C-alpha cells in the first residue's frame, strides 16, 4: 500500500467514510464523527500507522484532510501530491 492509501485508510476507518468522501471539503467538525473525540482517535491511528509522534502544534493545526497531507510531509510521510505552485 502506498502512503497515500494508508493515509486514506485511516480516515475511512476512523470516520466510516467511503473513498469518494476523501477530498478538500473534508474538514474538522463538518463530517459526522470528526469532533474532538474523533480527532484524538485519528491522531492516534495516524501515529500508529506511520510510526510517528506528532507535535502539539500539528495536532491542533490538523484541521482538514488536505491540511493533514501537508502536515504529514514534515514527518517524512509523503501521502499527498505535490502542491501546485502559485
Amino acid at each position, binding site marked *: 500500500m502506498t502512503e497515500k492509501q494508508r493515509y486514506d485508510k485511516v480516515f475511512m*476507518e*476512523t470516520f*466510516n467514510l467511503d473513498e469518494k468522501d476523501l477530498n478538500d471539503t473534508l474538514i*474538522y467538525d463538518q463530517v459526522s464523527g470528526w*469532533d*474532538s*473525540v*474523533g*480527532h*484524538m*482517535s485519528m*491522531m492516534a491511528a495516524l501515529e500508529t500507522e506511520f510510526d510517528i509522534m506528532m507535535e*502539539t502544534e500539528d*495536532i*491542533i*493545526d490538523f*484541521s482538514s484532510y488536505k491540511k493533514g497531507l501537508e502536515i504529514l510531509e514534515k514527518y517524512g510521510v509523503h501521502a499527498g501530491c505535490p502542491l501546485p505552485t502559485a
Partner: protein
Amino acid sequence: MPDVRFRRRKAEFKQAMTFYENLGRFGQAPAFILENGETLTYENIEASADDFGAHLKRGALTMILADNCAPSLIGYLGCLRSKCPVMLLARTIDDRLVASLIGLYRPNYIWLPEERAHVLSRCEKRYATGGYELLLNSDEAVSMHVELALLMSTSGSTGSPKFVRQSYGNIASNAASIVQSLDIRGEDRAITVLPMHYVYGLSVINSHLSMGAAVILTDASLMEKRFWNLMKSQRATSLSGVPYTFEVLKRLKWTRMDLPSLRMLTQAGGKLSAALVQEFASQCLAKGILFYVMYGAAEATARMAYLLPHLALTKPASIGMAIPGGEFWLEDDSGSVVTDPEVAGELVYKGSNVALGYAQCAEDLVLGDERGGILMTGDLAKRDNEGAYFIVGRKSRFVKIYGNRVNLEDVEALLHEANIECACAGIDDLLTIYVTDRAQVHLAVSFAQQVTGLPRKGFRAEHINRIPRNEAGKILYANLEGLSWTS
C-alpha cells in the same frame, strides 16, 4: 393553606447569594468575553436578560437549545430572573428529539438559533436577538412547582426524556459552595470547555457569575487552534474539564504550552485515573497552578466534593471531602451507617444542592421536593482515617458472571491499567469488552479472565473504532452495542 416548610425554605434561599438576581452590582466588570473579542459587562447582561424576560408570560416554561454563546446564556439568566423555569438542551440535539420533548413537556417558549427555527415553522416569533429566536409554542399554562428553576438532562444530548428538577435554592447554593471550595475571585476568567447544557459546564458559569468574574465563551474544542489562541489572547485563568479533557491535555503536552495566566484546573464529571491525577498534580505544583479534583452529579445540581490540590499528590484516587454546606456518609446494604474507615458502602450526600427529583413529562413538573436534601448517589465509596472519600465502584453497573458479581467499572479500570483502551458492557454471564485496538481483542479477554479468575466463556471482546462519548466525554454505554457491526 401555604406550606410552612416551603415558606421557611423560601426565606432561606432569599438570604443566600442568588447570583442571577445581583448581576448589576458588578457594573462594568466583564461578564462574558466573546470569541471576537467583544466584552459584555454585568450591566449589559442584566439589561439583556431583563429584555428577554419581559417577553415571557409569568410562570412560563422555556426550552433553550443552548450553546456556549451569549444569547443562550442571556435567555437562561432572563428565565431565572423572571422566575420562569427553563429546560436546557444541546444546540445540536436532533430535530426529532426536540419534537418529542416538546410533545412531552409542552414548553410555552423555545429559545433557539434561527437556523433551527424551521423545525417549528408553525410557531409565532416573539423576540429575536443575536441570531436566536424566541418562539411561542403554546399559550396553555403548565402547572409547575414554585421552586422549580431548571430542568437538566441526565444524558447529555441523547434525548432521554428524563430530566433532573433543580430549584432556585439548589442553583444558588451550589454556586456559592463552589466559589468557597475553589476560592473563585472577581479577577478570574474561566474559559468554557464544557457545554452549558451539561450541569458541570453550567456550574462553571454560575460560580463565576457569583463573584463578578468573567467567562470566556467558546464552542471550540481543545483540538482547535482557535481555542488556544483565545485562551492566550484573553488570558484565561481557569479551565474545567472532564477526564477526557485531561487525556487530551496530556496528549497535547500541555506543560510545554505557554499559558502564564492559567492559575486553576478543575476536573470532575467522572473518575480520572489515579496515575493521571498524580501526573497533573505534580505538573501543576511545579507550575504554580491549583489542580482540583471534584465529584458531582446532576442530582446534586452539579458538585458535591472537592480534593484540595496538595492532597491530589498523596491521595490521587480520592474525591476529597464534601463541599462547604454539604455532608457525606456511607450506608451498608441494610441502610445502616458505616462508621469504620476503609469499609465500603453507598455514598450518601446531604446538602441544599440536592435536586428536587426527576421529571419524565410535563405532569411531573408540579412535583415538589422528593428527596429532602438527601441523595443516595449509587456510588460505592470508602473513607480513610483522615476523612477523605474514595469512590470504589458503582452500585448498579455490574453483571453476574456465573454467579459472581463483577463490577464493570473495575474491569475497565484494570484493563486501562494494562494499557488496553476499552469500555465494558454486557449481560449476566457475558461481559463484552469493546476495544479500540484490533490487536488487543484476544489480549483483553485473557487479561479480564485472568484478573477476575472467572471462566473465559464469561468474556468476549469486540473491536470498535472508537469509544462513543457525549460532548462531555462521558462514555455512552447504550451506544456500544452494534458499533462493531459497522466497523
